[in-house]
């Protein structure tokens, strides 16, 4: 397998509604920023790999069909990836595979969502055949899982509040982040409406318009890059069925298997010590401790301790989501790629005000569907 590195990163200013741009304008904004970062133009790109979540999120069927011109893909290979909420991560990995396989030298990968054009809560609450109409958005699906985690871990009830505040405060250091809540406090989160008991309003992610783009290149392209590359040291994807006997939704097997494969590729035996910073997909604040366990950063039922003792804070020993994460910015299809891109920014030393000093190994993580799809990568300032 050939080496692959991130040589350019771009993202839009994320907002509740980007009324100033169309979908094409949104993805182009991110793509042009990535090209500028890499000091390249569309003519340097061999192929485009694009991802987004379900089409009902904008009400535009197969939007990739009309985005070829906006992304400079005319006359080049272009393909779309779809794995629900993990799609931003899967899309980056599919693009990386094209470089690692030696098919292309430089690939532009883009992920987006323009959620203001439709209503995600409606889109995620379809009537399923032979079932009563019980679905109530992502919160309705994930709230029982969070309740199960709270029960089995015996975590203090304010863990979710802590993550909700921490991530919004980190987002203040990220000029691209959607939510900029300088006045946020634990009390404010605690007093916000209980939407899907046990999940409060401020313990959920926002609904955003935004896009993210990366230029992935081979060894030669990375050598020619003017700014430091982020080397891909491992990448893995896994899936599991929606329903089966004994399914562990708090700690999904597919997530554990995906992380194990990832660490094997990257030569990581102790993720808690060897990974400097991680951007993980936390759509509801309680998912931080849950994923810390699933990813092997903490023992089962102990992940919340890392949240509560400040380990996962911006100035902690294992900063989680220094960009503000999904809790501050959630254009669903792009959210996974933003995790991957933010991890890469950290090891390139280009994360700006939310840069973690000395970050050399970083993780990007995404999950999607009913915790069915997982996509992860490890990037480093040096290749394997």
């Amino acid at each position, binding site marked *: 397998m050939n080496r692959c590195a991130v040589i350019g990163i771009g993202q839009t200013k994320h907002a509740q509604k980007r009324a100033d741009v169309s979908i094409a304008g949104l993805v182009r904004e991110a793509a042009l920023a990535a090209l500028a970062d890499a000091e390249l133009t569309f003519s340097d790109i061999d192929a485009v790999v694009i991802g987004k979540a379900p089409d009902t999120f904008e009400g535009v069927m197969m939007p990739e069909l009309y985005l070829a011109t906006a992304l400079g893909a005319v006359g080049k290979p272009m393909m779309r990836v779809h794995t629900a909420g993990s799609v931003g991560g899967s899309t980056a990995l599919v693009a990386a595979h094209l470089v690692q396989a030696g098919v292309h030298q430089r690939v532009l990968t883009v992920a987006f969502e323009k959620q203001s054009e439709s*209503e995600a*809560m*409606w889109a995620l*609450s379809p*009537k399923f*055949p*032979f*079932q*009563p*109409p*019980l679905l*109530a*958005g992502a*919160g*309705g699906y994930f*709230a*029982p*899982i969070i*309740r*199960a985690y709270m*029960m*089995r871990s015996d975590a203090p009830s304010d863990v979710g509040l802590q993550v909700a505040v921490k991530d919004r405060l980190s987002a203040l250091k990220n000029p691209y982040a959607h939510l900029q809540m300088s006045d946020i406090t634990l009390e404010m989160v605690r007093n916000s*409406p*209980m*939407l*899907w*008991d*046990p*999940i409060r309003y401020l313990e959920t992610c926002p609904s955003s318009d935004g896009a993210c783009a990366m230029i992935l290149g081979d060894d030669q392209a990375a050598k020619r890059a003017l700014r430091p590359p982020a080397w891909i040291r491992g990448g893995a994807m896994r899936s599991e*069925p929606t*329903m*089966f*006997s*004994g*399914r*562990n*939704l*708090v700690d999904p097997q597919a997530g554990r298997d995906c992380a194990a494969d990832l660490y094997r590729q990257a030569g990581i035996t102790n993720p808690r010590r060897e990974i400097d910073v991680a951007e993980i997909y936390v759509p509801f604040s309680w998912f931080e401790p849950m994923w810390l366990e699933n990813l092997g950063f903490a023992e089962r039922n102990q992940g919340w301790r890392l949240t509560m003792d400040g380990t996962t804070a911006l100035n902690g020993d294992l900063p989680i989501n220094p960009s503000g994460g999904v809790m501050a910015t959630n254009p669903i299809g792009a959210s996974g790629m933003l995790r991957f891109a933010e991890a890469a920014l950290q090891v390139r030393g280009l994360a700006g005000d939310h840069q973690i000093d000395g970050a050399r190994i970083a993780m990007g993580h995404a999950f999607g569907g009913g915790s069915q799809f997982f996509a992860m990568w490890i990037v480093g300032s040096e290749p394997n």
Partner: protein
Amino acid sequence: MSDAVKLFKAPIRLEYTIPAGRATSRFCRGLASGRLYGQRCPECKKVNVPPRGACPTCGVPTEEEVLLPDSGTITTFCIINIAFAAQALELPYACASILLDGADSTLFHLIQEVPVAEIRMGMRVRAVWAENKLASLEAIRHFKPTGEPDALASIEGHF
């Protein structure tokens, strides 16, 4: 650009005809007659409900039907307080994963006839059937508490 065209309306209506397949058809016919059927996997012996005709874990066909009681235990639940488009129920309402007695997978359904604040993990519940039973899980209107002692131990490993 105050005169810009910002929106056009293109209402879309989709009507589906879904052939349920053998396993789901048998399950739905059972519901229409007030019975809940699961299927046991010949390899792992787990009983899945609703049955899919194959075991999602072992990938082998499941033929053996198991008649299940309409009682079970709440493994976990949420209370929905948020209004949204296409919402069908009055707020607040509670939905729960229910482990039917004798089954190894959980069903998701409504819990009613109890104040939402009193619903607990481990609570024992029983189905309340509709008078006119559709060939669907809508044949069950909701589940309600049985009043039996909680059975937290029985839901271990099911969430």
